[in-house]
Structure formats: structure tokens, C-alpha cells
């Protein structure tokens, strides 16, 4: 049995289902045996568990329409693709949901007030939203790196170069915030850059997953030809 055959059990496992508590569940027992020797599944379980833990600490917020529309489009796009590709993208979507609450906080600073009032609304030096983004970015980066090998060197170079572009934008915004901690525009620019980085990492994960599924399809076709 390979990893894909256990995809449907990942969620239950992360939610605490164990074979020891379900004596008749042979598949769960088989999954636990598989998990013990499979680094990829262990990484997935670790990611899911971490996301679950972080998500449980978030306040309940309604995501802004822009993010939700993006996520919905992403989910629909994934639904149309091969089933085997869903796991990493689901993680990426979960991370997007995770930062949705954080972004909502940023939207609270949407300038329906004057610049001075908006600036005053931002507590100097306090950027809690940024921490949420950083957590999400770290998770997505780990996911992207785990699938990095499936992308060709040119694509990886382009993605790396553009992540560097985003890192520079993030650094510039942070420098501006260091100079003017109450500047609302500097904070918005920082959040824009972080948001774009999250989107690029999500796309990177989706792309790597697509490529993996194409690789699997090629292997299947080769098997078919050899039979």
C-alpha cells in the first residue's frame, strides 16, 4: 500500500483516532504501521497537527471576501484535478484559512478614517498579524521545500528569485516600520508583501503537486505499455 491509499485516514488520525481505540479497524492499524516507516506521511501528520493546534488558538473571524474568493477558486481548481494531488493543497488552503483571521485584523485598519486616525489606530511596534503570517509562511515553505525536487531547475530558479523579490519588499516595509512604527501605509505594504508571499508559496505547492501527479501519470502509462 502506498501513501495515497491512506489519504482519507490522515484527518481522523490528526483528530486523535488510533487503532488501539478501534480494535476492528484494520486500515487504521495498517496506516499506523505505514506511518511508522514513512517520512512523507510523518511530515504531513506533523503539518496537519501543527496547523490544527495553531488554528485552535485563533479567534473566530470572517475572512475578507478577497481571500475567500481566492481560496474557493483554489478549492474548485483542485477539485477538478486528480484526487492524488489534494493533500498538499489542502494543507496550503488550511494555511490560507489560518491567516484569514490575521488578515481580517489588517482590514480593520482599512482607511475609512483619516490618515492620522489610521496611524493612531496602529499600536507602535505591535504587529501581531505579522506573526500569523510568519507561521503560515514557515509551514508553506516547509511544504514547498518537501516537494521542491519535483520542479525543474529553471522553474525553481524563477520561484526562488521571486521569493527573494518578495523578501526584499518585506524588508523594505519592515525598515519603514522601524523608522515610523505608527505608519499605517508601511504596515499595509508589509501585509501586502506577506500576503503575496503566501500566495506564491501556495501556488508553488500546487505546481509541485501538479508535477508530481504528472509524474505518477507517466509511471502509470509506462506500466500500461509494459503490460
Amino acid at each position, binding site marked *: 500500500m502506498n501513501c495515497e491509499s491512506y489519504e482519507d485516514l490522515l484527518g481522523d488520525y490528526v483528530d486523535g483516532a488510533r487503532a488501539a481505540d478501534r480494535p476492528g479497524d484494520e486500515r487504521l492499524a495498517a496506516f499506523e504501521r505505514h506511518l511508522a516507516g514513512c517520512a512523507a506521511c510523518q511530515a504531513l501528520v506533523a503539518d496537519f497537527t501543527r496547523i490544527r493546534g495553531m488554528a485552535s488558538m485563533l479567534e473566530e473571524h470572517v475572512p475578507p471576501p*478577497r481571500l475567500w*474568493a*481566492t481560496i*474557493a*477558486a483554489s478549492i474548485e*481548481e483542485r477539485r*477538478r*484535478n486528480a484526487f492524488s494531488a489534494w493533500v498538499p493543497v489542502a494543507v496550503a488552503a488550511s494555511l490560507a484559512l489560518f491567516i484569514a483571521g490575521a488578515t481580517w485584523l489588517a482590514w480593520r485598519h482599512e*482607511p475609512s478614517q*483619516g*490618515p492620522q486616525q489610521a496611524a493612531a489606530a496602529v499600536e507602535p511596534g505591535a504587529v501581531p498579524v505579522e506573526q500569523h503570517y510568519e507561521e503560515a509562511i514557515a509551514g508553506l515553505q516547509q511544504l514547498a521545500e518537501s516537494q521542491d*525536487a*519535483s*520542479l*525543474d*531547475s*529553471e*522553474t525553481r530558479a*524563477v*520561484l526562488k*528569485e*521571486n521569493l527573494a*523579490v*518578495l523578501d526584499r*519588499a518585506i524588508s*523594505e*516595509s519592515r525598515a*519603514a516600520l522601524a523608522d515610523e512604527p505608527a*505608519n499605517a*501605509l*508601511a504596515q*499595509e*505594504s508589509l501585509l*501586502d*508583501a506577506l500576503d*503575496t508571499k503566501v*500566495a*506564491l508559496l501556495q*501556488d508553488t505547492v500546487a*505546481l509541485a503537486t*501538479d*508535477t508530481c501527479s*504528472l*509524474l505518477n*501519470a*507517466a509511471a502509470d*502509462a*509506462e506500466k500500461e*505499455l509494459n503490460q
Partner: protein
Amino acid sequence: MMRAPRVFVFVLAAIAIALPAAAQNPSTSLGTSPSTSLGASPSTAPEASEVTERFSRTAHLDANGAFDLANIAGNIVITAGNGRDVIIEAIKRVQRPNPNAARTLLQTIDIQVVEEANRVEIRTVYPRPRNFPGSVDFTITVPGDANVAIRATSGTIRATGIRVEALKTVSGDIELVDASADQFATVSAVSGNVTVRGLKASAIQLTTVSGSVRVDNSQAERLMARAVTGNIDYTGDLARSGRYELISHSGDVRLMLSGATGFEVLANSYSGTVRSDFPIARRGRGAEGNGRGVATPRAIRGAFGDASAMLVLRAFSGNITIGRR
């Protein structure tokens, strides 16, 4: 003595060109086409031979069906047609110093077409997607009401007249002409430019990291454009009650507006300049001005005309300009 191989290659190429493109069975497309052409491409390095193979297929798609294409490398041209057919023309290409090796590799590129009543899916499958020395160029016609989603890794996407759902590429440009989007649509490149002309959309998001975004003569209820280092240019009229959110970090944001649609604007640049050719009036409660909006070198807030459209324009170091066309 040296002429024989050249003549042989020439004859082979001539035969291949003369042969009609062969339709392939989607499930057995590996190496079944007789239309392999062999010859040196003028666009490739002198030591590399390019081997090409044509692929043709026509599929039926019901009204309002979905068309989905996933391609790794190669250019894509997609156009809306009148009928209910999806017409797929593709050229597989492989470049290798050894033509025989190139031809062998060419046979391993599989163009898979899945045809259902309300959905047509195409994907190119390579034996090893990483660093494969080949590509597939597509020229596709789809019914005008098909919802189109395309994902490419490298290569340009040029779409005309389609109903767009999602167009994505990493390192190519995307050009979208006279398209529509009934639902939320997204067009994104990473290092390429995104150009949109004559779009009619309810909601569309255009993004790039190091490329630029250009929107000409389009109508959208909600348009979001983002770039990081590139410029964002919007030219044309605004939709009444439309919302436009144009954001670039270090690129410029430029609007050249025609028509008489009024707008409310929030434009801010951290270190660049903000300029408007339109007189901006204060709107709602606020301490600033006597009926005039806030206008500083780095920010403009207020309304023009009936303020029916909403503009949110933001740059970090880029300049923002709202001009008359």
C-alpha cells in the same frame, strides 16, 4: 558521400510535412502518430536537433462546460469559436544533439485528453517532468461559453474571446483579449507580464511578482491587480459601482481614465508621489479641507463626481497617477 544523409533527412522532413496531422486516441497516444517530423530548427542551438510531432484532436463540450489544460512547458494560444467543439492542435518538441535520441524522447510525451459531456481536460505528461528537454505548444479553440482554466509552468498564454476562470503561469506572459468572467476569475504570472484588453468581468484578480500588469478598455465590477516590482497600468472607463484595488510595491500605479464615471479614491504611496488630474472633493465626515479632499504629495483621499466607483491605489516606493485619457 556527404550528400546522402542530408538528402535522407530532407526527404524524411518533406514526407513528414506532407503527412496530415494524425488524430490520436487519448489513451494510447504514446508514439502512435505518423506525423513525426525530423529536422534542425533554426531557433535552436546549432548542436541541437529539434524533433517535432503534431497532435490533433477534436472533442465535444456541452453548453457552459469546463475546459481545463495543464501544461509544463510551451506556449498556449486559445481562442473562442462558434461551435460546440474543442479543437486541439499541438506540436510536441524535443531538442537533443542526437536526433534519434530526440525522436525517442518525443514519443514519451503524452498528451492526455479526457472528454466528458460537460468537461474537457488536457494534460501533458512527461516521463520525467524535471528538466525534460522538450515542450508542447498548444493552439486551441473552445466554445465561447466554456469556462477555461489553464495552468502552465513556463510559456506564454494568449487567450482571445474566452470565458476565463483561471490562467496561471510561472515564467511566461499572459495576454487576455476580449474575454469575460462571470464568476471570480484569476490570472496570475510570477515573473511574466499580465495584459488584459476588452475584459468584461464580475470579479477578476490579476497578479504578478516581478512582471507588470496592464488593463485596457475593460469593465469589471471588482478588479484587483497586484505587482511587486512591476507597474500597474489601467486605461479606460470605470464601471459604475465598480471597485478597483491596484497595488504595487516598487512599481508605479497609473490610471488613465476616460468616460464620466465618478469615483471615490484612497491613494497612498509611502515614498513615491501621488498625483491626480481630477479635482478631488472631501467625502463624508472628516476634519480636512473645506469640501476638498486630502491631497498631499503622498496621499489623495476623496471623491470625484458621483463617486460611484471605488479606487484603492497603493504603492510603497512607486508613484501613483490618476490621469485623463
